[in-house]
């Protein structure tokens, strides 16, 4: 009899212990957010402003009571340290610092390394800036989400804008950095171009070395070839150098230039950027966003960022905001679903699937099937505007994500091949600067 009672007691305690995590998670004293960003190397042009943004956002969140009443803290690891060091630091951040969520990373290479690791560690990871569409198309993850779009809608929006505004071009050349993004973005762009405007001839495909200090020969070759359109998805110092060298020698005036992700260089290029260049923004990111520019909170954020860093926010700053909004949204949704009790990580992940949240643009949603973020895309042309010592965006089109994002379960290149010239006829509203 005594033995039976003992067995019953042990079983009851064991059952209670097993059930504990699912029923009641103690409200933590702090939510630790571990962020992988570039603090060194060329991509620090995105990473350092994003770090400044993360610190600002966390401080602001804490002033408002944190997430679900819990203050947040942020810590950073440097993607610039590269492969093995990044993986070790990520593991340390998860296992030693015991962060509650990670935002990783900027580079698609980093995301490719970290996503499987986050999965192994059962760590909620928001891929906050990396653009390779293949990451979520090749494998289904539970713990990884992407809180912004990917390269496919980003390039497709730029291409549709080009075809809508300059429909008669016959030749095109590309000058992209020789690494994953440069190659993948061209594959997306050229695949879609072939089906939407098959008569266009590609006259040069130039992939200068990543970080090349000189594009003189490329510029000479393009001046000699005289393509109607020159596309570049380069960024950072490479893009600045290319645009300036091309401008100094008249190439920007000879061919129509398309800067696939040029928004991030506009302030640095200043008056060296001529009017009329087509510019993409990796999302609907623009500090003078036509639908947000009068929003008091948006304006306050932009001005605070300018005061802190000396520059207006660029897209990586807004992507960081989206990661925070996504995490906050998921935790608060899970809290509500859990009847106000603090949710487990698994419950937060369940809540993140299909989550709709808002950054500093139109709303974003996390597609439940593959955890891909559906985000609008803003594309415009450069224009001189009073009050700014750099060019601003004009004739902006904002593309709805559902029409330009690869459907769940399909590979981007396969989907792009199913499109037709009629795809360009989609109705997209246009916004004037200051309008």
């Amino acid at each position, binding site marked *: 009899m005594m033995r039976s009672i003992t067995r019953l007691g042990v079983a009851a305690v064991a059952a209670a212990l097993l059930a504990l995590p699912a029923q009641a998670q103690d409200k933590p004293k702090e939510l630790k957010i571990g962020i992988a960003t570039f603090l*060194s*190397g*060329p991509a*620090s*042009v995105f990473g*350092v402003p994003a770090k400044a943004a993360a610190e600002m956002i966390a401080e602001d969140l804490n002033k408002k009571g944190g997430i679900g009443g819990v203050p947040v803290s942020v810590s950073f690891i440097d993607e610039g340290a590269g492969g093995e060091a990044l993986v070790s630091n990520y593991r340390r951040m998860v296992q030693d610092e015991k962060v509650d969520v990670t935002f990783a990373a900027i580079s698609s290479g980093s995301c490719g390394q970290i996503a499987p690791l986050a999965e192994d560690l059962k760590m909620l990871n928001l891929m906050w800036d990396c653009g390779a569409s293949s990451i979520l198309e090749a494998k289904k993850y539970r713990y990884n989400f992407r809180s912004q779009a990917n390269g496919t809608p980003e390039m497709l929006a730029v291409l549709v804008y080009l075809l809508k505004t300059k429909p008669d071009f016959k030749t095109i050349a590309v000058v992209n950095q*020789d690494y994953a993004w440069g190659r993948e973005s061209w594959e997306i762009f050229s695949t879609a171009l072939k089906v939407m405007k098959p008569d266009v001839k590609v006259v*040069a*495909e*130039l*992939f*200068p*070395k990543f*970080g*090349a*200090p*000189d594009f*003189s*020969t*490329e510029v*000479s*070759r393009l*001046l*000699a070839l005289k393509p109607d359109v020159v596309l570049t998805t380069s960024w*950072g*110092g*490479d893009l*600045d*150098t290319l645009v*300036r*060298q091309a401008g*100094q*020698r*008249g190439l920007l005036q000879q061919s129509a230039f398309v800067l696939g992700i040029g928004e991030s260089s506009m302030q*640095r290029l200043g008056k*060296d950027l001529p009017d009329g260049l087509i510019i993409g923004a990796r999302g609907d990111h623009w500090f003078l966003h036509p639908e947000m520019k009068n929003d008091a909170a948006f304006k306050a954020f932009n001005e605070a960022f300018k005061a802190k860093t000396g*520059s207006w926010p660029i897209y990586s700053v807004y992507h960081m905001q989206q990661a925070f909004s996504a995490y906050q949204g998921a935790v608060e949704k899970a809290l509500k679903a859990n009847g106000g009790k603090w949710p487990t990580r698994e419950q937060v992940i369940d809540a993140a699937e299909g989550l709709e949240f808002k950054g500093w643009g139109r709303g974003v949603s996390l597609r439940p099937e593959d955890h891909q973020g559906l985000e609008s895309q803003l594309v415009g042309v450069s224009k001189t505007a009073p009050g700014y010592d750099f060019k601003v965006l004009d004739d902006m089109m904002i593309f709805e994500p559902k029409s330009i994002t690869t459907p769940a379960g399909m590979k981007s290149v396969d989907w792009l091949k199913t499109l037709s010239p009629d795809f360009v006829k989609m109705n997209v509203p246009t916004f004037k600067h200051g309008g």
Partner: protein
Amino acid sequence: MDSTIVILAICDGISYAALVFLVSVGLSLIFGVLRIVNVAHGSLYAYGAYMAATLSLLVAPISPWLTFPALLVASVLVGAIVGGLMERFLLRPVYHLEEVLQLLITFAVFMIMDNLQRMIWGVQPIFAAEPVKLLPNISILGVNYTSYQVLLLPLVAVITLFGLRYFLRYTLAGSIIMAVTEDREAATAIGIDARRVFLITFIIGASLAALGGALASPTTSLVPGMGTDMIVLSFAVAATAGLGQIEGAAVTALMIGLARAFIIYIQPELEVLVPYLIMMLVLLIRPMGLFGVNRVRKI
């Protein structure tokens, strides 16, 4: 290949070769005299560029033409101050160590200087294009070139080459440097202060690297890590020419510059490979480099 492409590629190649020569000749000179492979040479290039941009942005509002002397002043400042301090306090104590240790130490200096550069100038690209804008464009076969790149840079490179030759062969200071290079012990025995010669040589070499950076600064964005690329390329040039070979560095820089330009017109995929392909082929056939010779005077 049509003649237009040949002429355009020659113009592009010469302009690129001029910058590469200025940096690699400094590396070669330092090796020729001090027998030290200075990995931190790339940092001197980057510091020259950043310093030139800083001074240019400072003096441009007074008169844009002052940006030209600013480039020269920046090179001398970086060469004398950064180069001088580097030689005196970091390299001098390690001259007696094994070459591999010296290499590691200069690599450490390179890493430290790279981080310092980020602290001083930040991570955002900097651009100071005033000198390029001041000079007119010239049209070659209907293609616009900046005269800064196709005329001024090659001109500075040629002046440097002949100036250096003259200095080393026909001046007393140059002869002293040659004497130390030839036989340090014998030179010291006749009263030459070898340590001072090392310092002066290092400052000249460092100033040349900084001059390369300063002259590049109006044409390119200054970004973290810019020194890394240049040091790798300079090593390729110096090794292909034969370490310590000044005229060799000029010929090799020209060879690599032209080959790179032609390949961009013909097969752009191979652009990155070209300098290293040339280096590999040359070293397989002549391990001491194109102009290197065993046990003879190196400069």
